[in-house]
């Protein structure tokens, strides 16, 4: 016991406190003075110092390795963030580049998708009819009706029909419409908004929004005309086809045609439906449809329906601009439309297939 307490370094706790710097300055100085003359003390202290240094070294190494790991993780996250930002920037640049390419190198036209999303047809320009009556073959039946629509719709007004017909995609669209219109019913392909837009625009009338994925349905109907006033109407049968008119008369009819349209909002239940009533000259009627004109009290009408509503294009020269302005459209049952144009009422009966896709008829 006395041996153990011979030197202060025999007390392990004291040595530990010395090494860990947990002694007061005075105590430390006292012990230092003892060590100077005590070789065993020096050896014991040296051993403890080495042990503490080694353990601390291990602790530091471990801490540094953890720090390095954290820094690497931080750096990789930073690199990922930079890569992500770089990738996003590249995508934006490519998208802009593609957009610029399409605008500048594809005939200065905006991308098709853009057109599909928002198509607003403006008021029609003054009709610059290029399709003269002579251009059409007389014996093509319903096919001509479709072509008539399509020619005025798909082709630029300054272009001759033959030139536009030679364009690949346009020809395909034409064929689709033509084949459908043979059955008296034309449905444009989904996503074919560009064509639809042009079709509507060429037909004239008020601005019509054509929404994506909703096909436009077109149908030729023959309306029955009933006189509603005592005044003598100018019945359809009394009017000569415009093809037989002189050039001056044709021009007048064309000018009138610009003004003869009316847009009205008709309420059905809680739904507002837009109805565009339009009147066109006989000469705009496809030749195949002109075969019906000879019959009394009948009027050829192109009925088109899309998401925005209904468009009735009446091919008649006897309805005045004022009558169109004051015209009303009503529904009768689920399958009939009645157009009242001042002196006469025109009745239309919709076929079943057309009814099913037509939500409102008034």
């Amino acid at each position, binding site marked *: 016991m006395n041996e153990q307490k011979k030197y202060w370094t025999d007390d392990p706790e004291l040595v530990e406190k010395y090494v*860990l710097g947990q002694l007061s300055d005075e105590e430390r100085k006292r012990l230092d003075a003892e060590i100077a003359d005590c070789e065993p003390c020096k050896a014991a202290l040296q051993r403890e110092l*080495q042990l503490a*240094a*080694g353990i601390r070294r*291990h*602790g*530091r190494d471990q801490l540094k390795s*953890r720090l390095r790991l*954290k820094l690497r993780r931080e750096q990789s996250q930073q690199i990922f963030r930079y890569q992500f930002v770089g990738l996003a920037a590249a995508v934006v640049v490519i998208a802009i580049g593609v957009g610029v390419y399409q605008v500048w190198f594809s005939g200065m036209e905006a991308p098709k998708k853009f057109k599909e999303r928002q198509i607003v047809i403006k008021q029609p320009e003054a009709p610059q009819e290029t399709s003269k009556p002579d251009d059409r073959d007389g014996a093509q039946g319903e096919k001509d009706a479709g072509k008539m629509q399509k020619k005025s719709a798909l082709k630029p007004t300054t272009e001759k029909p033959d030139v536009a017909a030679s364009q690949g995609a346009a020809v395909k669209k034409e064929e689709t419409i033509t084949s459908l219109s043979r059955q008296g019913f034309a449905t444009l392909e989904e996503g074919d908004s560009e064509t639809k837009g042009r079709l509507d625009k060429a037909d004239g009338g008020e601005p019509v929004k054509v929404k994506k994925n909703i096909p436009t349905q077109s149908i030729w109907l023959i309306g029955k005309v009933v006189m509603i006033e005592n005044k003598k109407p100018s019945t359809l049968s009394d009017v000569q086809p415009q093809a037989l008119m002189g050039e001056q008369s044709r021009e007048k009819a064309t000018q009138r045609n610009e003004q003869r349209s009316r847009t009205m909002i008709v309420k059905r239940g809680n739904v507002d439906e837009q109805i565009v009533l339009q009147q066109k000259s006989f000469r705009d009627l496809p030749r195949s449809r002109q075969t019906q004109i000879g019959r009394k009290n009948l009027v050829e009408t192109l009925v088109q329906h899309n998401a925005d509503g209904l468009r009735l294009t009446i091919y008649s020269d006897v309805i005045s601009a004022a009558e169109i302005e004051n015209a009303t459209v009503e529904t009768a049952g689920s399958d009939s439309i009645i157009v009242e144009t001042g002196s006469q009422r025109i009745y239309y009966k919709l076929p079943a297939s057309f009814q099913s896709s037509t939500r409102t008829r008034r």
Partner: protein
Amino acid sequence: MKSPLQFFNTDSKILDLMKKGDEEALVMLYEANRRMVQSYVSRNSGNDDDAEDLLQEAVVIVWERVRAGTFEYSAKLSTFVYATVQNMWRRKLARAKRETPTEFTILNDPEESVSFLDELIENEVSKQIAAALVKLGEPCKTLLMLFYWEECSMEEIAKRMKFANADTAKSKKYQCKKAMEEILVGMGI
């Protein structure tokens, strides 16, 4: 340019985290001083790897002192880190100079050569003790680390290692040191 308030806020946040033992503080301190240290080292014949090693060492020193409660916050942390890095780098440069001694330096500075040798030996012994600690295994390794590295009291060690009380921890520590001594003797130290 950061305002003094920002420096204070950053420093106090780092110190608080260090006191809590949150090692994220190491990363914060490292990142806050990285460019400064890289700039200093590159201006003094070093490269980015040297700067990285020095800064890691300096950050660990701050950690040790804060954990041991011996760190005195008399200046900004960046000032302390910069001074520590400077000292370590100067020492390293001087050592590198001594590692390729000329006849003149040996003849004229024999004491310094001996001191360098001692430092080298101490460094080597430390490495071996660290290796012995790994050999020692758990729970002795953790116990000795807590005692010498984190400088925890016996009460705290008992609590963290779930010993019955401080005396149990003390007894366990004695056993661990004895086992460590045996390993060191076995290693010829």
